[in-house]
């Protein structure tokens, strides 16, 4: 890709475990991407901002155990705003591996559990965006 990849990151809900997503934010910018870290933001606001800012990737992090609920809510909001296919959607945080398949079924493109190497996230984004451009 010639232009910079743009990533919007946020924490849904009240859970204040920010360290993980801030680290990912740092790692993605070190890898040459442009990252916007929103902190707490409502889902509707995030989707609107993602459309407005024309980002490539939306990423969020859940440590509270509410990963399934939040994923459903975000996908629904994207669908309602007719933007589901415009973004690569990623989740990170602490949740059981048994839930990975369900998260993908809900519509999350990239699922990253605890202790994921940040390079894996970078590679995943590059690879998927390359595939998209090729289509």
């Amino acid at each position, binding site marked *: 890709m010639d232009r910079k990849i743009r990533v919007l990151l946020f924490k*849904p*809900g*009240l*859970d*204040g*475990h*920010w*360290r993980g997503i*801030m*680290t990912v*934010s*740092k*790692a993605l910018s070190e890898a040459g991407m442009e990252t916007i*870290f929103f*902190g*707490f933001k*409502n*889902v509707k606001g995030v989707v609107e901002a993602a459309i407005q800012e024309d980002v490539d990737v939306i990423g969020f992090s859940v*440590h*509270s*155990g*509410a990963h399934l*609920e*939040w994923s459903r*809510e975000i996908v629904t909001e994207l669908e309602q705003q007719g933007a589901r296919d415009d973004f690569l959607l990623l989740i990170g945080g*602490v*949740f*059981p*591996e*048994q*839930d990975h398949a369900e998260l993908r079924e809900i519509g999350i493109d990239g699922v990253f*559990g*605890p*202790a994921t*190497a*940040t*390079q894996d996230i970078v590679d995943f984004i590059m690879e998927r965006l390359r595939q998209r451009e090729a289509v």
Partner: protein
Amino acid sequence: MEENDKIRQAEEEWKKDKERWAERRDEFVSDAGIEVKDLYTPLDTEGIDYLEDIGFPGQPPFVRGVYPTMYRGRLWTIRMFSGHGTPEETNQRWKMLYEEGETGFSAAVDSLTFSGVDPDQEVEGAAHEVGKEGVPLFSIRGMKALAEDLPLDKMSVALVVEPMTSAAITSMYFNVLKERGLRKEQFSGTTQNDILTMTIGYIPWGSLRPADLLKLACDLIEYCTAMGEAPRWNPINFTTYNYREGGIDAVQEIAMGLANAVAHIDELLRRGWKIDDFVHRLAFHLSAHRDFFEEIAKYRAARKLWYRLMKERYQPENPDAYRFRFHVQTAGSSLTAQQPMVNIIRTAYQALEAVLGGTQSLHTNSYDEAICLPSEESVRLAVRTQELIQEETGVASVVDPLAGSYYVESLTRELEERIWEYFMRIEEMGGVVEALNTGWLFNEMSKAFNKRRRDQESGRESIIGVNCYVMEGEDPTPPFRTNPRAAEIEKKRLADLRAERDNAKVSVLLDQLRSVCEKRENVLPVVRELTAAGASLGEITGVYREIWGIWQLPFVA
């Protein structure tokens, strides 16, 4: 001196001999970046005066422990941090832990309770998180359900809430104890009440400004201790554990804890109290991390520095004020989702550090915590880990058994110097509140965390199961799931309460709280009445937010 010269000479010869032997690495450094030498000898403890610098347990400078008999007199409290689902379910878990030999309770609250938000409040998605990360405690009814049939006259409870909700949650608990017929002199336990946890460790939704958090934290200290409303309660423990989980090292951990304590002490002195009115009830909650000897030396150095701080700055008359008392939690951030059973071994070594370091109370993490909240099986093993140290290893028979080790003593001295220097840096920039306002502390944390990530990803820091001894195709650990109906149950509990309580009374009291907040008087007396009258957590915290506004975080990530 002559003796040391002989050793020096012999060491030179030994070094020559050693040259023929290769070492595994070019350099060995501790977690805090201290160079680790190949060998420690009496030369490394030169200048350390036993009576002056180390002394005896229970005596200044308290390096060897805060009580003369330590675990020979009384073992540390086995205090597991626990909570999930509903108060009733947490009550069941607490009873199980009690049966298994736990000797103190500790309440993990959910993210709503931590943030001071009710489940029926208009905060997006709040209901998704009820009971997920801890126990929901939105009103005195929840607190009663949590406490039911537990021996609260014999076992102390740690309420792990921070300044934003400490007045409300602690007063709910006090009200329950009072209803049980306990006198205020019998209220025994701790409120975490730490301002740094909420500003650099975990960032809750709608947090208050550092100065307002400090005010609330000091209100509780003042109410319990200086005003004598709960004289045996620990109204704060400075939770360096939480900052450490954010990536900083042992030196930064203790330095930030001391700087935080100084901010609270100075605020209470400004309010006109004397040091002896409150300082003996301040406590700490430290981490037990990966570097075995450095962590042990850290506890020893922390005790000495607290003594120094008291002696040089505040000179309390109460001898208890010089004793640095602390709880330890093993490092959650050292656990891995990969090969989770290995976490049992990590935790056992970290627990041993805490014991060899002289902790007063200990939480051992469960092996599945990098995946979900602990299951019954995993938490039972975590309790057994402590019981094994108590019953089978013999280490609790001797007070401070590592004293006199050339390595441990020299490391203790080194840490002491480095911690003091870092502490003074924070002091010189105006103390923790100023260091928070400018974002400096937050950036220190970010820098440390990013360095740790790079070290882990590059393999400079080894983690079994992640960057070495990796197993392919592991069977995932079955996750423990919390009650999916918790939000519904808690919403109903609150709705019933709102329908049955005296709403006019609550409304008058909330107006009183508004006026107290405007005048910046102590919130505790009216908050205690509010919780007794059935006011909810969100209603009380809502007043703080309404009057003082919320904090715009200054950090640069």
